């Protein structure tokens, strides 16, 4: 395996933050190089330097094929054979899948006009290679976030680069798609393509890694062949704690008292695309953690959006035995429901606002007297969550835009937990969160149920669902295909219900 790209002594300082401190990295062709580290360790920043989005602080060097190189911008990086899937999606919603994949390199016909047919055919081929069933002329805005992620992957692959960087590509994918992707990654490596792979999923890391490098607080703390690495060691290197300390035992606080009962829930106006959710009925008990599992597009998010009032529905929802009308998110919030959305960028956060302002948006009234915000109390409450969730930020006044992906996710969780809803719906709550923080989120959810809160967890991460749920509901093509108690819910049973 030939050495392709070397980074030496790379540092990067943002106002108030030293994101990287003299990092070294050696990347070889044909090798899958996993980059691990807790949220805010500097992984994405390092990758953005490698693709010319950021310029590193003076002092370091990047060598490609032994040559000192200054990477000017992403386009230059691609010319040098480096392409990337960014952690934060970078798609144009009002263009089609094919147009997104071939943006800025559209195939031209003889007339000099875009050869749409060829573009669609090429896109279809790339998508097929990844086993993705999305029509190339679908508007990207109509896709779910997981599907958008797959479009991004298809685009990165289609560049046929020497080095492909994947920054948490599977964070929004479910098991099935993630497996396809890891297979694809191995195949690419076999074709002598270098891969940098960032992930917080342990199974995945050990499945595909040839080499693992660990970053902590912007510094390289370890780099070794995957064969020499164990889970325990990796976790210790990443978060400086023992794996066994992380995940405590599951303590159920579920009661038999029905808090919310949903009957015959379905879409009011079925759209052309998407799962046709219909006839979904279930009960949520007080103090329970109810897991929702399904493949991408099974309609889990749609069900939650209906309960939360952001999507119109038919059927009834009753809370405490009384039927309630929920036609907007504020109706739902009024009935004590909270919703951690799966798409933090578009639905969860006001990126231009500070951590504090995003945090308090759900429950600002608590800090208000006569509508005037008490800034001190607001800041204190925010500080509390910054500390307890380990949100890495120079201050509560930092714009969330400048936080790392995982830390943004923590802000979304914090803003809903702080409101203390009776029913908390969390859709992919640990997307992009490191293993330490994940354990903390699980513990947090567990603690909340002990205080009487009921929680619905939607997750594509099957082990996560199994680990924390009291019961699991499986959705398939918009309908419930199984309700399993904690003891019946095994990996096999759940997968069977989801696919069978």
């Amino acid at each position, binding site marked *: 395996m030939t050495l392709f790209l070397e980074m030496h002594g790379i540092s990067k300082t943002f106002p108030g933050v030293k994101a990287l401190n003299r990092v070294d990295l050696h990347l070889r062709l044909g090798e899958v190089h996993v980059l691990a580290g807790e949220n805010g360790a500097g992984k994405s920043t390092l990758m953005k330097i490698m693709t010319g989005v950021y310029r590193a602080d003076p002092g370091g060097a990047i060598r490609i094929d032994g040559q000192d190189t200054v990477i000017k911008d*992403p386009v230059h990086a691609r010319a040098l054979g480096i392409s990337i899937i960014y952690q934060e999606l970078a*798609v*144009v919603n009002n*263009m089609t899948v094919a147009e997104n994949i071939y*943006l800025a390199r*559209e195939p031209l016909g003889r007339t000099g006009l*875009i050869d749409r047919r060829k573009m669609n055919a090429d896109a279809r081929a790339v998508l097929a290679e990844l086993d993705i069933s999305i029509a190339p002329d679908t508007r990207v805005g109509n896709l779910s976030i997981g599907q958008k992620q797959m479009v991004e992957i298809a*685009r990165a692959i289609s560049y046929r680069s020497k080095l492909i960087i994947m920054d948490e590509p599977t964070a929004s994918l479910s098991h099935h798609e993630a497996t396809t992707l890891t297979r694809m990654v191995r195949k690419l490596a076999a074709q002598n393509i270098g891969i940098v792979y960032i992930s917080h999923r342990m199974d995945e890391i050990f499945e595909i890694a040839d080499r693992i490098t660990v970053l902590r607080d912007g510094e390289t703390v370890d780099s070794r062949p995957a064969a020499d690495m164990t889970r325990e060691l990796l976790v210790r290197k990443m978060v400086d704690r023992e794996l066994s300390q992380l995940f405590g035992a599951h303590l159920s606080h579920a009661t038999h008292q029905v808090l919310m009962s949903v009957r015959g829930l379905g879409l009011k106006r079925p759209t052309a695309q998407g799962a046709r959710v219909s006839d979904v009925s279930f009960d949520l008990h007080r103090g329970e953690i109810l897991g929702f599992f399904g493949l991408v597009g099974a309609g889990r998010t749609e069900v939650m959006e209906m309960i939360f009032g952001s999507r119109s529905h038919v059927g009834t929802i009753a809370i405490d035995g009384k039927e309630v009308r929920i036609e907007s998110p504020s109706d739902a919030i009024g009935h004590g429901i909270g919703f951690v959305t799966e798409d933090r960028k578009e639905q969860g956060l006001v990126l231009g606002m500070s951590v504090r302002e995003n945090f308090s948006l759900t429950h600002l009234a608590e800090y208000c007297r006569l509508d005037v915000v008490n800034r001190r109390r607001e800041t204190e409450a925010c500080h509390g969550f910054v500390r307890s969730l380990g949100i890495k930020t120079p201050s509560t006044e930092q714009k969330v835009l400048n936080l790392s992906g995982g830390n943004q996710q923590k802000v979304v969780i914090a803003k809903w937990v702080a409101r203390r809803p009776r029913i908390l719906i969390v859709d992919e709550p640990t997307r992009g969160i490191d293993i330490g923080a994940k354990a903390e989120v699980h513990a947090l959810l567990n603690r909340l149920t002990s205080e009487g809160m009921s929680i619905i967890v939607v997750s594509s991460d099957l082990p996560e669902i199994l680990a924390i749920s009291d019961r699991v509901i499986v959705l398939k093509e918009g309908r419930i295909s199984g309700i399993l108690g904690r003891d019946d819910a095994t990996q096999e049973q759940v997968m069977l219900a989801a696919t069978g």
Partner: protein
Amino acid sequence: MSGQKSATAEQTPQRLWHGLAQLRHVREVNVLLAMLIVGALISLYTPYFLTTNNLMGVFRAFSLTAIMSIGMVMVIITGGIDLSVGSAMGLASLVTALCFDAGFGTSTSIAAGVGVGVTFGLANGLLITAVGLPPFIATLGTLSIGRGMMYMITHGVPVTPDTPEAFSVLGQGYVGPVPVPVVIMLALMVVFALVMRRTRFGRHVYATGGNEHAARLSGVKTDRVKLAVYVLSSTIASLAGIIGFSRYLSAEPASGFGSELDVIAAAAIGGASLAGGVGSVTGAVIGAALVGVIANGVVLLNINTYAQQAITGGVILIAVSLDVLRSKLTGGNG
């Protein structure tokens, strides 16, 4: 999910049907419908509306606004705005007139007018991309500077040089029954509709407005795209100015003033979103047409002249509301 997985021959009727069904969702078709309804209503009450002469007159009357809206809509699609079109138009017509006055030939004079447009566009584009000014401020500045220059040059006196017969064809001539400005409008519409839909440049304009960051990361030279649309907008506006001058053979110091609102309105009525990423060239032309038909109708129907503006406003609101409500009912949650 009916769909065109492949474009084999047997699927063609299905695709056609699909295409027709999709049409309902297209903003410009709705506005076109609204315009046809307004036209039908007018012609119910007056026999003078549906005459070739009148219709051609209406077309010619809105052609300049429509031409400018073609450039404007491209700017709007990138997420920008060009307030300076009126000044670019006015100054171009003035400079062309001055060139004729100074004895230059037709082509030199036209070139000078176009040069004004290009200069405006470069100024706007560079202020926005190189300096980093918000488009509203940048083009407001050049709007003021352009107006000021027109006053400084003319001191408020129109310039009315002698011009060769051939030049006046541009504004006053006909191709068959169709006035030349209308022909130019249609030609520009067809060309730029094609450019926006079928060329790289066009797609990059949409991408820049849809998600500038993503577009730049993908390798779209968004700054160049923006520079280009501002240059196009101003240049097209200068063309409108030259056509206008050829029509009236008088360059007024106040010509084009305030027209930015009409031009932006045409684009917006035709479906362009000021947030960027959305809009179409044909929509903008149809938007200009709707306003033109209403203005004609008010005079033909001898409606209280003072009410014209109120009626125009009302009809626009109704037309676009119908459009919005229709797509709400048929569209689902976009």
